[in-house]
């Protein structure tokens, strides 16, 4: 049965990986932990849900709607919570604090609208699992696994090879110099937020399918945060690898120690990383991050 446990671990890791990709994007570009990411996931997942029950269309249109709404919510959030900080060149710690309050705002709006109940997406998959011999893999976990690597791949290619990607990277290195070079920093920051929000929408839909949809779904962003820390600032692939490792570790810990103590060990591992190897698995050294 231990192969099944490992598969479960990777499956859980894929859930976290999809969250981590969106989270790490902002972590890398703007050097702060965007804790509003969680509530953007939840809010866009709910908007996708409303779309799903009103129009009864399949999984794909729902994902498109969620991604779009996630992107728009993120851009709106940037305007409300971060624009003035960008303009005033504030230190990353202020972004972090602002993101927490933005997150609370979005979550509160979702709670007022959705009530404290939980909701289920209409059944998108006829069969929930794929069975290979003795092993079962959940369909949505499989899709999350593939999608997070796909999203990662596309993002890395975009950042490395395209002109816009280069501009975004320039903004992340040094905002002042980038704007001196004629790069419109605000627009590129907005682009980064839009992409992060879209990825948040994507994760939200799959989290909703996996765990039912409820206003506190965004609390899972903490796992994305831990994954990014383990994976290292400055590396998106590190965040995804970190997430899969996190999922594996948690599953093994739950299996052998039980669900009560597993989070203790997870956080201990994160603390060890922060103390011993703060640049993470594949990150680079950065002066200031929040």
């Amino acid at each position: 049965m231990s192969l099944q446990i490992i598969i479960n671990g990777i499956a859980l890791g894929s859930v976290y990986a999809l969250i981590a990709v969106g989270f790490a994007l902002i972590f890398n570009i703007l050097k702060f932990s965007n804790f509003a990411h969680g509530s953007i996931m939840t809010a866009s997942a709910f908007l996708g849900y409303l779309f799903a029950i009103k129009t009864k269309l399949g999984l794909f249109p729902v994902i498109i709607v969620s991604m779009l709404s996630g992107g728009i919510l993120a851009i709106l959030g940037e305007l409300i919570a971060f624009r003035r900080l960008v303009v005033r060149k504030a230190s990353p710690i202020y972004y972090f604090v602002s993101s927490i309050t933005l997150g609370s705002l979005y979550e509160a709006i979702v709670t007022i609208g959705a009530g404290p109940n939980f909701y289920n997406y209409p059944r998108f998959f006829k069969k929930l699992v794929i069975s290979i011999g003795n092993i079962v893999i959940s369909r949505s976990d499989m899709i999350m696994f593939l999608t997070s690597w796909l999203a990662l791949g596309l993002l890395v290619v975009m950042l490395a090879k395209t002109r816009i990607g280069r501009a975004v990277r320039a903004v992340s290195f040094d905002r002042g110099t980038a704007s001196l070079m004629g790069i419109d920093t605000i627009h590129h920051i907005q682009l980064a937020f839009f992409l992060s929000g879209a990825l948040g929408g994507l994760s939200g839909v799959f989290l909703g399918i996996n765990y039912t949809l409820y206003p506190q779904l965004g609390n899972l962003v903490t796992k994305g945060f831990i994954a990014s820390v383990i994976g290292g600032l400055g590396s998106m692939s590190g965040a995804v690898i970190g997430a899969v490792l996190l999922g594996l570790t948690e599953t093994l810990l739950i299996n052998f120690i039980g669900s009560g103590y597993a989070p203790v060990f997870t956080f201990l591992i994160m603390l060890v990383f922060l103390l011993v190897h703060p640049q993470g698995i594949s990150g680079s050294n950065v002066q200031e991050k929040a």
Partner: protein
Amino acid sequence: MKKTIAILLLALAVAVSANAAPASNEVLVGCLQDITGPTSTLGKMIKEGAQWAVDEINKSGGIKGRQVKLIVYDTRGDVQEAINAFKRLCTSDKVSAIIGPPVANIGIAIAPISEQYKVPVLGFAIDDRATIKPSGQPYKNMFLFQPSSDQQGAIMADFAVRERNLKNFGIIYNQGNAYSVSLVGPFKDTLKNLPGTNVAIEVPYQPNDKDFKTMLSKIKAANVDAIYAPNYTQELILISQQARAIGFNGPLIFGLDACPPFASLCGPEADGVIYINNITESDPQIQDISQAYLQKTGNIATNKFFLGYDVMKIIAKIVETVGDDPEAVQKAVENLTGYVGLTGTITINPATHQTIGLEMIMHEIKNGQPVVLKRYTAPTKK
């Protein structure tokens, strides 16, 4: 400008509080429930049931000509909020009785405080600590109007072994939730008295856990016949789906919270779930009210709705007989015998303040619909 605003606010506050003074010819009944918060689906349904009963009573002339007013306070799943609201109901609202919560941690928190006041609390929290003091004596004002966790756990275990011949059980339960924990002990104790049975594995989980696959895999690996999971609806949905996803196809035994709308929320994985309920939906009286409520609000009336309804009707009947003084109501509740309600024939045992012989019905979900399996009379508390 600021001074004007302050004066206007003060005037508004005075006006509001003046309007809030109760009309003296109304019968006041308190309703202390989670309307928001994690267990709001339960609390809202009790309130809706109670309100439906109030509307019925008021339409047919009220209690001896007096209209009934339900004063609802939202406890928000927060113990402190609940205690404050309880005190308000007893002291400034001066209600005759309180319809209490089904949630154990709130019930347990209110119980010791209720000793200082005179208002009886007719609640549904099945954990014994909400009605009975550590000394074994009941709290003066706390009453339980559905079978306790001892009785429900015993019924479920008895059914599983005697009717379904299940021998090995795995238990998965929420370690941080009093309701869940209180149903595990009686189940295991009943199994001890049934030869050939055993609990192969017990897996606790934490309140915010949503991924049960690993824990369910452990249970499956222990080769159990059935899984017992006395948890709240959201977790039951995930447990059903994930148990079937990892390939466990044996019976799943759930508590009250697998009643409708669990089956429609969960989908096809709900088939084969066995659960306990206070009512059965096909009962004609239940159906009449369910249909009317569905038409009026578009929502399904759950078992909690009918618990709230019955208790409100009981309070109304008592007030009609003995008047609205809370102490008189308390005495009458303590000695309530043979009230025929929608959730069964209710008699209160004065020694425990809990029900005697109240019926519970075991159901199975087939094709998304509950099917009645067997009616049980709750065993007498030892």
